């Protein structure tokens, strides 16, 4: 029989995590329970669903902190997120559909670390930092260092994800997110990406560009970021398109082909900069 624990607070959760590193850490269960009847039952379940200390969205001190247990519905309905972190709100609205958004959590997306996790390129583009905890203490990990391979992360066997900390973009930084899939709702992304582009007039001062579903993990595209620096937006779009191809490793699978993903990734990245042109004119 599967053991089950719903901790009352974070200390109890961390003690249980340390004592039972083999237990399944479960929150919204939208990934871990897919085809549950055809999977082996876990030894135990550490149920973090609605664990109060990790269920929050909080704006303070030049950042927005989102608890690992916050659902995407809570994220997309948060006024501060919609105002300051529009790409995250946009990604949240396209994760599954209403039923999935009501259950799936930020911690789940970050912990599962699927290469098609829709929020993950946003966390890269917005330069998020993750807060993790264990009975040994708390630590912060820049999200750009979090993913170590296909569905592997820097989370230790006794640690739990507590929150993501997202710095508010500055007044000259524009942000964008875009997903390409078979259908807006429910479909798993073929390619998706996010960017944070800092402008001086129409000149790109700095850019963080991230893509998902084109490698074994969500990735920042350093070659694009280097190619656009110092360029006017129109030139940056061309430079970005040229730089993205050699920098990604898309695959053929049931959802798409490598060549299609490559072309879409090029168009997507170019459009991030093209799309800024009208906005920069204002």
């Amino acid at each position, binding site marked *: *029989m*599967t*053991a*089950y624990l*719903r901790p009352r607070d974070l200390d109890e959760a961390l003690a249980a995590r340390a004592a039972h590193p083999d237990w399944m850490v*479960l929150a*919204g*269960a*939208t990934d871990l*329970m*897919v*085809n*549950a*009847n055809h999977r082996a*039952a*876990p030894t135990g*379940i550490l*149920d973090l*669903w609605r664990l109060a200390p990790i269920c929050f969205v909080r704006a303070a001190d030049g950042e927005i902190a989102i608890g690992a247990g916050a659902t995407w*519905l809570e994220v997309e309905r948060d006024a501060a997120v919609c105002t300051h972190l529009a790409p995250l709100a946009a990604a949240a609205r396209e994760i*599954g*559909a*209403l*039923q*999935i958004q*009501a*259950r799936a959590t930020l911690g789940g997306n970050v912990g599962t670390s699927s290469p098609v996790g829709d929020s993950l390129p946003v966390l890269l583009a917005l330069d998020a930092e993750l807060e993790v905890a264990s009975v040994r203490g708390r630590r912060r990990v820049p999200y750009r260092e979090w993913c170590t391979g296909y569905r592997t992360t820097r989370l230790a066997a006794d640690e739990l994800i507590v929150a993501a900390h997202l710095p508010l973009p500055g007044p000259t930084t524009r942000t964008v997110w875009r997903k390409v899939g078979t259908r*807006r*709702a*429910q479909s798993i992304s073929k390619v998706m990406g996010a960017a944070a582009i800092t402008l001086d007039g129409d000149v790109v001062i700095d850019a963080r560009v991230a893509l998902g579903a084109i490698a074994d993990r969500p990735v920042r595209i350093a070659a694009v970021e280097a190619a656009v620096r110092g360029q006017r937006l129109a030139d940056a779009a061309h430079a970005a398109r040229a730089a993205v191809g050699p920098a990604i490793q898309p695959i053929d699978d049931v959802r798409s082909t490598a060549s299609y993903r490559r072309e879409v990734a090029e168009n997507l990245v170019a459009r991030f900069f093209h799309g800024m042109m009208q906005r920069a004119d204002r």
Partner: protein
Amino acid sequence: MKLAFEVNGERRTVETSPWKRLLDVLREDLRLTGTKEGCGEGECGACTVELDGEVVNSCLVAAGQCDGRRIVTVEGLARGGVLHAVQRQLVACGGAQCGICTPGIAVCAAHVVDRGLIAGCDDATARAKIRDLLAGNICRCTGYQLIVDAVIAAAREVAPGTEGAR
């Protein structure tokens, strides 16, 4: 484990594995077979129920997670033998055909109407919102138009926040 929770306003207890799907607890342990299984992967929405006031796929909820929670299934939409407005309108508008997706659509649509999620919208906006809010409920028979018509008609009947015609 012993599970104690509220289902359609009644307190129920079940002895079950915490890993069992809420969908199976409802259908097998409580014999509430109105909730259907479509895909078992959270893609189709046939098994939609309300959990603590939000719509969820019951195939993706572990039984253990339901202890102390409040569930509403399609059997809980009607009150005192009177169908919920969305159920009446699904019938009246022809918004159901084979019927497998219908319980999930009724639960999701009742949530949309009762929560006033399309209240105050003009017709075109309301229709777009309904398609968005019901995007997780897949129907392979009707082409959706009649379902959207039914939700629009139900919303007209129901003042938001009043739990409809129940």
